[in-house]
């Protein structure tokens, strides 16, 4: 996985797997620190195809050892699934700002992900079972939400107080 260091931001590309070594992440941390760091540090995994279990542990170890808080942006679907499966992504006050959300066009049977902002398009709720999102329009087509919101946003409802505090 390639790591790019931008001002107060880490961007990743490739696959988060066993070839991602802790040294890559600590080197990026040092670079960030020397350029001046202002937590939360923005992290963008939208160009990462997926993560395997070894890569996930490398990332989680780094988040704990660095003691930084992170703001996840453009979170891809695979990472939302990880948030919902593993407790520990939101240590040190880390949180999510924007997520990708699968939609489906019944008329053309096409699938598309839209990026949405928590607190704006996606309300911060303790229970998403009754969430209704309006249809999305793109290229003359209407798309409806294609996930179970209660399941997809359980990482928010399980960390409701944290997200309520961070997303104003």
């Amino acid at each position: 996985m390639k790591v790019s260091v931008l001002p107060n931001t880490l961007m990743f590309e490739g696959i988060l797997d066993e070839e991602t070594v802790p040294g890559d992440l600590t080197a990026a941390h040092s670079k960030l620190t020397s350029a001046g760091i202002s937590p939360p540090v923005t992290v963008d995994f939208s160009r990462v195809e997926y993560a395997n279990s070894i890569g996930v542990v490398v990332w989680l170890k780094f988040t704990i050892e660095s003691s930084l808080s992170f703001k996840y942006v453009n979170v891809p679907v695979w990472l939302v699934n990880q948030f919902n499966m593993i407790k520990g992504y939101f240590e040190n006050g880390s949180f999510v700002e924007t997520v990708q959300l699968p939609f489906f066009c019944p008329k053309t049977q096409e699938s598309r992900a839209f990026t949405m902002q928590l607190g704006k398009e996606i309300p911060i709720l303790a229970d998403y079972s009754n969430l209704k999102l309006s249809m999305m329009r793109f290229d003359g087509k209407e798309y409806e939400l294609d996930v179970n919101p209660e399941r997809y946003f359980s990482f928010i409802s399980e960390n409701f107080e944290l997200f309520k505090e961070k997303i104003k």
Partner: protein
Amino acid sequence: MNETTIITHFSEPNWQIVNKLSAISKCLDVKLLHCSSFEKLKKTVKQPFTGKVLFFTDEGMIDFVAELDASSFRSRFEAAMFIFSPISAMAHKISNLRIVKYLIGVQSVESYGRDLAILIKKFSQDDILNLEKYLAFGCKVNERVVSSGKSKRDALEAINNYILRLGDPGYLHPFREYARVVSELTDELLLNAIFNANPKMHGVDRSQPFNLHSREEVRVEWGYDGEYFGVSVRDPFGKFSSNTIMSYLATQKRMGELLVSPSAGLGLKFIFERAHQVIANVKQEQVTEVMVLVKFVNRMRDFEQEKKSFYYFGDESSKSGNKNEEKNENKATYAKG
């Protein structure tokens, strides 16, 4: 010749399933005894059987299954349990029950035929290996051998590209998401086969390049039959046990525990979270083949809601020694996974 017997009894009358099992058993020349009452069931299981017995039941009968598991005649039995709860929730209840080998997510009876027929046929004939059994006739199965980090990456890329080309390039199809899901699944299966099953690879730095000897090589197979995508990963070690799998799924790890091993047992959780069917075929000390099946449907919401099942085919009792010793040994083998 030993004959196979199927016994059925459910916590509530379930004639649709009984009729389906009865029909399949007749087609496969397997004897079926339906126990319409609990009294009849208790008498039936005490009968002397000349061959193996497969007991079909549901999770409402778990207390009886536990009794059967603790009985002196348990070695004759394997249990197939229809489940309403998620597999991870069932794992807590059955991780110590050796006879429970098959967990079948409840769905419409019409959709069971193929799965039940494969289960009964594999159980009765002891012919357990090969992905072809799960894919429709005529489906081409592709193959790669993995012996290094490079060949692992190549195999994953080949599977990813295979799925991506299934979709029309001018259309926003869901195959891109499916390619990602299957890549995740295959990657975890490969990690298990390369680093956990092979004793030589225990404790190695997994970020370093590796080369496996020809007798340690891992074989990956995959194919799509228009409904199911199947991928199989086979290693030559034969050390996987159903108790190990269930024990890991039953464990909710705390953050501190997650950080003290290379993948902290997360791989199995990832596999069971994403696959619709997980099938482990194990010939002790010879071969482990773990297969996953995912049903490609148009909507991701339907994909997420598909019921999940787990099948373990293999003779764990062929390893001598008591139950606890074997369990501890297997845990040691997989603790790094």
